[in-house]
């Protein structure tokens, strides 16, 4: 099984040299720590920054320089600041190559629910709907099952949707899966120590298993 760091580390392998990447709140932010050496990546922060850098050292926090999760950050050489309309403009116009975000549920045709639990959590969708509606490359970092052991990879989402037919790849504590254009989750890799059987039991949606499924390389 993978922990949060493990999921982030695996997702980081999908990042290519020269990519502009948007990282959502939660596990996705950890991906920044695992970007492979020798490749150049520019992180986009939807509140108006390209070139997001690491957290500042103690005493160097700048209240005017934060990320989309409202955390203090720094900027890297070659950064650019712009307003919120341009930020979502570049997202909508597909200049951002890869979006990585969390999910509560994903359906077998790539629908995603990650913003609302009616009556309980109604904080708002922030930039999530814009990101999933526009990005060509969307990778979801999520838990395969909830605390009650119920699958979160479903035939249909039960929670209010963030977007439809948009998720391409999912990395969970158990597996790496693709979402097929015609519907269905295709199992690509097993997490260390996890069996195909375990993954089958944890996946309520249609699951395609072809041939020998390799264990993740960690």
């Amino acid at each position, binding site marked *: 099984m993978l922990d949060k760091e493990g999921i982030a580390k695996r997702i980081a392998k999908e990042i290519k040299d020269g990519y502009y990447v948007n990282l959502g709140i939660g596990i996705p932010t950890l991906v920044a720590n695992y970007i492979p050496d020798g490749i150049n990546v520019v992180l986009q922060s939807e509140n108006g920054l390209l070139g997001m850098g690491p957290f500042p050292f103690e005493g160097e926090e700048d209240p*005017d*320089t*934060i990320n989309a999760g409202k955390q203090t950050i720094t900027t890297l050489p070659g950064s650019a600041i712009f*307003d919120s309309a341009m930020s979502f403009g570049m997202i909508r116009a597909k200049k951002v190559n890869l979006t990585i975000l969390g999910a509560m549920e994903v359906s077998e045709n790539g629908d995603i629910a990650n913003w609302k639990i009616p009556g309980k959590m109604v904080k*708002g*969708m922030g*930039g999530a709907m*814009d990101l999933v509606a526009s990005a060509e490359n969307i990778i979801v970092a999520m838990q395969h099952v909830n605390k009650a052991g119920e699958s979160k990879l479903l035939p249909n989402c039960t929670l209010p949707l963030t977007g439809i037919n948009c998720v391409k790849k999912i990395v969970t504590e158990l597996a790496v899966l693709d979402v097929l254009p015609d519907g269905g989750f295709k199992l690509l890799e097993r997490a260390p120590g996890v069996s195909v059987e375990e993954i089958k039991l944890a996946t309520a949606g249609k699951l395609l298993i072809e041939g020998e499924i390799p264990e993740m390389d960690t």
Partner: protein
Amino acid sequence: MLKVVSNADEAIRDIQDGMTLMLGGFGLCGLPENCIAALVKKKVTGLTCISNNAGVDDFGIGLMLKQRQVKKMISSYVGENAEFERQLLSGELEVELIPQGTLATRCMAAGYGMPAIFTPAGIGTEVAEGKEVRNFNGKDYLMEMAFDADFAIVKAWKGDRMGNLVYRSTARNFNPVMAMAGRVTIAEVEELVEPGDLDPDHVHTPGIYVHRIFQGVDYEKRIEQRTVRKNI
């Protein structure tokens, strides 16, 4: 150019009950702190506030919510304000949660004189309810209307007496697009300078959009989440 006013109280003098206000800022960053304090002091009520977030309980729009001054919020994320969530879930406060990009672009549309924009954000979700959908090149888009706000209240880093504004770092966020969109735009700045002090090439908001400007005071610039890395 008689745009300069003395302070926030003077700047908001004609804001009345029931008006629609745009307020700049993202989280607690780039907030028009002086104007918010003045609105709290003035106790205007029944306001519709267009702002990406609702601040926290004791800072930003949260201060106005505590006094029940807000009838309706139009925001994209209100997670950091417990009082807001409570008022929302109890039905005391009308809330329209809209995608952040849609919020920004509806402000931009108003500022660019466009009545509506098309965006794919929200297609297939509850955000699409009641809205016109058009298909362009095989993809569905929602038609979203430009905002109409009585006042836009923005925060900038520097501004000159003619209303030209420059922003600093990510405190920029919604301020430029809101500055363009209000029927009346009020700008509070950390430093008010003379015409000629700002390089025309570096002006972010041309003064034509700004009706009132004043030198702000005592900025708290609260940090919502102070995150640091270790010195190895």
